[in-house]
């Protein structure tokens, strides 16, 4: 009875393999551009991808043969129909045990080497790949952007340009962008899959991240770390444009009506779920706003989540819409 158990349910086993096809199928249906993770458009993400491929390749080199070996053993030594010779006493072999420990040790050694190399290459405080690429291209003036996450929006401040945006990031192609990031409330992850990996954005703390876009285009950015009810809507479109287009955009935003003082920031930072993906622009930003937000948060400033707001989303969104309408004038 035992072995034939594998046979009658063959269709089921086939079924379980079916989803494997999805891996290939989806990649082709829409030209593969949905696989953000495998379609890097920035220097950092390209480096990450390079090492990802290397890591997977090395691992597959072990995992695949191991898998095949197990399948072969299971077939060859099965009691009903297998051809293997049974040896009820064999349970030890020095040579094999050396191999069993040796192979993983060597592999882990190799992987560790590459892992450390990769970590330094994309180190958010000093990404050598970005530094090197910028040097090669003789770019002198990197762009600085301050990022503040709130509940649940992103505020981007361009200190030198004196402008700020909410939920829209525009960067020039081919120029290193240096971010300083903090949060006014809880922890978020700053993430643009095709451009740069995640970095935690933490209240009362400042971290850094860099970016060097190699191809113009529109990319999706979002928070990757759960931060409360509005988390799923915490997206920001990222536009990488030519330098000229960037200058034009800055000029346009500099004409915006609203200014971003700390008082205005406190309004932005009120718990808001940006369901419609509205973008806001500010000209004139209070100088030192970023540092002020960090200091205020460290001194205990919070933007509490009202208990009622999340239980009935529909009602809350109506209230929020009314509030927004009121604020506009």
């Amino acid at each position, binding site marked *: 009875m035992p072995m034939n158990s594998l046979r009658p349910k063959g269709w089921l086993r086939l079924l379980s393999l079916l989803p494997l096809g999805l891996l290939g199928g989806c990649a082709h249906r829409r030209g593969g551009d949905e696989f953000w993770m495998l379609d890097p458009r920035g220097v950092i993400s390209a480096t990450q991808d390079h090492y990802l491929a290397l890591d997977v390749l090395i691992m597959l080199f072990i995992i695949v043969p191991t898998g095949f070996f197990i399948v072969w053993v299971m077939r060859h030594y099965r009691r009903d129909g297998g051809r293997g010779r049974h040896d*009820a*006493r*064999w*349970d030890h072999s020095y040579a094999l045990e050396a191999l069993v420990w040796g192979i993983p040790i060597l592999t882990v050694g190799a992987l560790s080497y590459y892992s450390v190399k990769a970590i330094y290459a994309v180190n958010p405080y000093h990404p050598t790949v970005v530094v090197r690429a910028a040097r090669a291209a003789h770019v002198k003036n990197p762009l600085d952007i301050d990022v503040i996450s709130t509940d649940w929006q992103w505020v981007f401040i361009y200190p030198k340009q004196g402008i700020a945006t909410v939920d829209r990031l525009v960067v020039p192609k081919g120029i290193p962008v240096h971010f300083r990031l903090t949060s006014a409330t809880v922890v978020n992850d700053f993430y643009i899959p095709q451009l740069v990996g995640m970095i935690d954005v933490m209240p009362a703390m400042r971290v850094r991240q860099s970016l060097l876009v190699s191809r113009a285009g529109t990319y999706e950015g979002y928070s990757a770390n759960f931060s409360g009810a509005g988390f799923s809507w915490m997206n920001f479109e990222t536009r990488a444009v030519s330098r000229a287009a960037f200058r034009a955009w800055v000029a346009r935003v500099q004409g915006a009506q609203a200014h971003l003082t700390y008082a205005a920031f406190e309004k932005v930072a009120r718990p808001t779920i940006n369901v419609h993906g509205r973008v806001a622009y500010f000209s004139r930003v209070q100088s030192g706003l970023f540092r002020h937000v960090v200091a205020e948060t*460290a*001194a205990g400033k919070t933007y509490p989540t009202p208990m009622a707001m999340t239980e009935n989303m529909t009602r809350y969104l109506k209230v929020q819409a009314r509030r927004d309408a009121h604020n506009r004038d």
Partner: protein
Amino acid sequence: MSATTSGTLDAKKSPMWSSGHGHDVISTKTLGFWLYLLGDAMMFTALFAAYAVLGHAFNAAGGPWIRTVAHAGVAFRETAWLFASVLAYGFAMMALKKGNRGGVLLWITAALLIALGFLAVDGHEVMALFRMGAVPERSGFLSAFFTLVLYHGLHVVVGIAWMLVMLVQVASAGLTEKVVYRLLNLRLFWHFQAVMWVFMFTFLYLRGAIV
């Protein structure tokens, strides 16, 4: 070679079923208590780690910092009380070895009273700090500081309660097996909290004197 098939034992000659064999109750219970202490030590370690992380001037958030709240002098007095109590408990154990029930009762009572003295000093110090506004909710630093102090204090309170229970049991049941292993475990516990106090003395109070 297989472990199953090898071996020099002759199956036909060796016994298959053991003939009477018991487990030593006291050592089994003591082992368990050691393991518990290991867990408790991990809790202290975690609290010390929290204190290390939150022990910087920045974490005082402008409020009182280590120099203001940790007085080596007071801590020294507390240490004296605590070690005297441990010593007294040690005498109780010596009496136990001799089977001297009266001695056990006497010395445990002494240890208990001295421990109360420790609590009095400890409590007095904490209250004084509270009065000067150094309360746990003032800053991350004070939260970590008081949590350690009070967690250790909790151990002393538990130890005192345990001594009370043991006094009753020694008096009523005598030095039975159960009472003995509990007395031994209490000794471990009492030494343990004293050892933890040494760490507190070093990392909280001495450091406060140095910084």
